[in-house]
């Protein structure tokens, strides 16, 4: 399942780092972050609890980039 979320982040490199962090999160199959569109598209693994996974994704993103936000 794929879902797209709005994000807030200040620089392009930070967006790249968010993408890398989100990809490593358990339950996330794949993820792309578009800094230009300020969007994060997450592909979840089969049967993943979307809300819980997204919480983890946000936590991991905050770790690499303090100043980011994901709207879910």
């Amino acid at each position: 399942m794929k879902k797209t979320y709005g994000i807030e982040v200040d620089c392009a490199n930070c967006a790249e780092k968010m993408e890398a962090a989100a990809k490593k999160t358990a339950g996330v199959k794949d993820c792309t972050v578009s800094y230009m569109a300020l969007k994060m598209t997450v592909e979840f693994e089969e049967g993943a609890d979307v809300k819980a996974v997204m919480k983890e994704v946000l936590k991991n993103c905050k770790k690499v980039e303090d100043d980011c936000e994901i709207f879910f």
Partner: protein
Amino acid sequence: MNKKQKMALIRIIISAVLVIAFRFIPEELKIVRFVAYMIPYLIIGYKTLIKAFKGILKRQVFDENFLMAVATIGAICLGDYSEGVAVMLFYQIGELFESYAVGKSRRNISELMDIRPDFANIEKDGTLEQVDPDEVEVGSIIVVQPGEKVPIDGVILEGNASLDTAALTGESVPRQAKAGDEVISGCINLNGLLKIRTTKEFGESTVSKILELVENASSRKSKSENFISKFARVYTPVVCFSALALALIPPVINLIMGNPADFTEWIYRALTFLVISCPCALVISIPLSFFAGIGGASREGVLVKGSNYLEMLSEVKYVVMDKTGTLTKGVFEVTEVKPADGVSDAELLEYAAYAESFSNHPISKSLKASYGKEIDQNKVKNVEEISGHGVKAVVNGVTVAVGNNKLMDSMKLDYVKCTKAGTICYVAIENKFAGYILISDKLKENSKDAVKAMKAAGVKQTVMLTGDAKAVADEVAGELGLDKVFSELLPADKVSKVEEILALKQSKEQLAFVGDGINDAPVLGRADVGIAMGAMGSDAAIEAADVVLMDDDPAKIAKAIKISRKCMRLVYENIIFAIGVKLICLVLGALGIANMWVAIFADVGVMIIAVLNAIRALRVKNL
């Protein structure tokens, strides 16, 4: 500018003024100078310092805040107060510019794509009520007033108007619409009042589909973008370790050799390294170029589903096209009326149209359409359809026979054979040959120019595939100047033909297939780049293709290729420029020729130039 940006600007101005003012503090007052310079340094840099500190706590050391903090604190420790503050200052100016430029182009592009309707008018008890388009059910009747956008796809019940489709197709000539016509959402009603019965939900309407497609385009990343992400991931750590090596190894060697170590000089050089190490110019400018390119293209009626497709489009060397609906109109029309001696054009057409008036065959429809006048069917008697041959009838007391050559042969008539491609209707009046009418699928007006433009844009081979007869196909291909033509193909054959061509081409060259999205979804999928044309309102085409041409103008194929070329040129320019300048500055920095100021240019200056260059991808109107 938003609030955050305004605050940043104020901080930049204050600290810039202070830095300039503090230059007048005499050198001897060391403590005073240090304290004085710390004021602008903290004003401009406190956020970066805090972020760098947090980064260290989270073990994220190679982050640009950390680099800037180390470089500036290092410079201050070496006694270069003004340089330390200046680096931080320019870094912030760069950040501000980046966020401003990106925000602005983001807005520009979304304005280009400003086709989202805000409301739909629903008539209730004689008054119009504005509602959210999302809440309108299929089959509701909506009213579109002059100047408003059509919010949802539907069919016109009442009224007629000129519709501006420029935002969807790039076509500036308005389209006429009247009762009974289908309209798609996103058009602007220029003059009339329209009552429309909706045929889709808002979410399924053309406008929503297009917006979704364009907004998601940047999540399909191109090879260049992936290359840059990988490069950035390696680049920063490599430069940082080089900086560390530069700070330690030469002084240590100096010590071993018995020379003075000169730590200050080497640490200074290492710090310039750190300033250059930020990959921001690359990381921002490449996606920005693609984003702008896709935005500019969509304004021209070319929807590209992803940066990767834009990249592939620029390498297209083979264009394989479907005939019907792509190069030709896909509508049968009377293209020639050739009467025998003693019969006029109008007479011939009139008799033929009357004789065929009871038939619903496409041929008879085109005859009637070409005749153009009302047909009084009472004048037609004794209609006799002869299967596989044609039709005989008595029109106004005159016997008329309309049909193919078999009909003429069976009537044992002496007739002029026509060898032209298309469907030929021979007409006999009172058992005498009266002439023929040629009905064929007409070429689109600009098909020929389109093929020429493709060639000019560097396409090696243009190929046409069609299920039609060889004679028809060869004539069309000859007229258009196509390189190759394959005719009498079944839909499945088209896939295998495309596969044959795919096998022949070199791996760097891309093959594009252009079709109208009807019946050719498998071929669209098999080609490197599938281009669907005339997709206004056709969901199937939008789904199956990688690139969607909103109107059915084949000239857009070359245009799309040119747009992608321009975009890719900017991408390469930026990659080479940014990496080149940085590498040169790194070398000069290591040799001690480039100082901190050069390093700042390599970081902020390159980024600004790259961003400005990237935004040029938006301008594609005159390509």
